């Protein structure tokens, strides 16, 4: 046994060192006052689902998927809406809301004079976006179930699935947010999310595209999110699901690393 010398180690990764929950406590206080906005947010994707279920679904009828399965158009569309809403929620939270806190009022600069560190802020804010996203997903899933669109118990796994989508997009959104200079830059955010929403095999199966474009679609992160949730709600699995998960995990990790580093540079001048 050696006598332990007084060491000076920066405690990294110790559980007692985890402080992101302080950011959540703060956000919870804010949200307690604006819960109505949060609550009404549940309705938007549900309206979309109803519109498709009642109207467009009737126009399209049933679809034959690439694997030969036949599903109603509404059941096909529902998980895509879920994935899109997870993407939009995470991107909005990590761009609009965080841009405000970052560039106006110096809220984060204040936090950093306490034991909090840039990493806590990055993890805290991404985590918060995920939490919020999973609430929305839960409600959406419930509505799907009521409408008879859930084919399998695996559908419950859409909640972690949507969290993963939120993680991937939230991290990248946060990283992007650190590069933004003015509110006008948010035009570029919608320039990115809008085509993703429209062209990620959301509204129609990927085989509708010409083969060359199909390859392109496979680069879209939302495509992987949609496919992941779709196989869960329809209960149709093949090995490609691992690829979808891996894509989103890697994307999230890269985004989080860049975000954490950029935040550090921005906040600790």
């Amino acid at each position, binding site marked *: 046994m050696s006598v332990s010398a007084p060491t000076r180690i920066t405690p990294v990764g110790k559980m007692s060192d985890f402080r992101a929950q302080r950011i959540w406590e703060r956000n919870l206080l804010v949200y307690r006052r604006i819960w109505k906005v949060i609550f*009404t947010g549940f309705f938007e994707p549900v309206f979309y689902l109803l519109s498709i279920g009642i109207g*467009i679904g*009737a*126009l399209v009828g049933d679809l034959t998927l690439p694997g030969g399965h036949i599903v109603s158009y509404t059941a096909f569309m529902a998980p895509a809406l879920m994935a899109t809403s997870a993407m939009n929620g995470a991107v909005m939270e990590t761009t609009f809301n965080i841009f405000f806190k970052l560039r106006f009022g110096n809220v984060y600069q204040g936090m950093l004079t306490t034991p909090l560190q840039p990493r806590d802020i990055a993890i805290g804010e991404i985590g918060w976006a995920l939490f919020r996203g999973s609430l929305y997903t839960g409600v959406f899933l419930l509505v799907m179930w009521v409408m008879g669109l859930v084919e399998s118990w695996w559908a419950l796994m859409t909640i972690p699935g949507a969290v993963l989508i939120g993680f991937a997009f939230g991290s990248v959104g946060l990283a992007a947010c650190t590069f933004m200079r003015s509110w006008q830059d948010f035009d570029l955010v919608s320039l990115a999310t809008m085509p993703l929403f429209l062209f990620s095999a959301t509204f129609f199966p990927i085989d509708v595209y010409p083969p060359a474009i199909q390859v392109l679609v496979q680069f879209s992160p939302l495509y992987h999110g949609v496919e992941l949730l779709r196989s869960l709600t329809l209960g149709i699995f093949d090995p490609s699901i691992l690829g979808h998960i891996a894509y989103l995990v890697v994307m999230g990790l890269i985004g989080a690393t860049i975000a954490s580093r950029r935040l550090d540079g921005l906040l600790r001048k």
Partner: protein
Amino acid sequence: MIATLTRARRTVEAELIAYKRTWRGTVISSFVNPVFFLSAMGLGLGSLVDRGQGNLSVSYLTFVATGLMAAIGMQAGAGDGAHPVMAGIKWRKEFHAVITTPMNPGDIVVGRAVWGTIRLTFIMVVFTIIAGLFGAFDVGTALMAIPPAVLTGIAFQTSMTAFTATREDSTSLTTIFRFAITPLFLFSGTFFPIANLPQAFQWIAYATPLFHGVELVRKIALPGIVPPDVTTLPIWVHFAYLGVMLAVGITLAARFLDRRLRP
């Protein structure tokens, strides 16, 4: 009347100056988004619909493109009457500055409506040409449907201005977009014929403004379209509805804005 219009022109000029700073957003929303939307909805989803079980009398691309003209008008108009107005009243407070000049709140409302008309007409022309290139319809005929689409937009813009002028914060704006504008967008016949809705909802749709805008655009732009893809209501009903809405919108907007700015 002439004086009002001259003063309204000042508002237009001010908007034009601000516009120079925000042009990028406009390019995206008026050029890029229509291209994306038409190719995804019209071509992609259209290929499913056209081989699906619904029997539309026109292609889905044609159906959606005409519906979108009115819907885009609504979105842009309602957007214009919401946050920018709240900013003028509360955040940047430029309306308060404006009324210390010879301008009245009414001049602001009219001026913004005129500006909105110019902007919307521009957006619609671009959209119509792009949709024409996609093969949605004959551009010559479709251009005649631009006035009703713009009318729809301005009716929404002025009514939304009236609403915003009575609100304290942007939460109510979020709420009205979620519970009025989005459902209107989704259920007013833009993406599928009203006839697909349950009977009771069809009656509700008749009472809502975007439905009349969509019908009007389709009946003018697509002479060959037949029920049930459109209703049998005569064109003047739609015009009357939107005209009354615009008149009421302007009146209330001027009154509420006046009350708000000069309490």
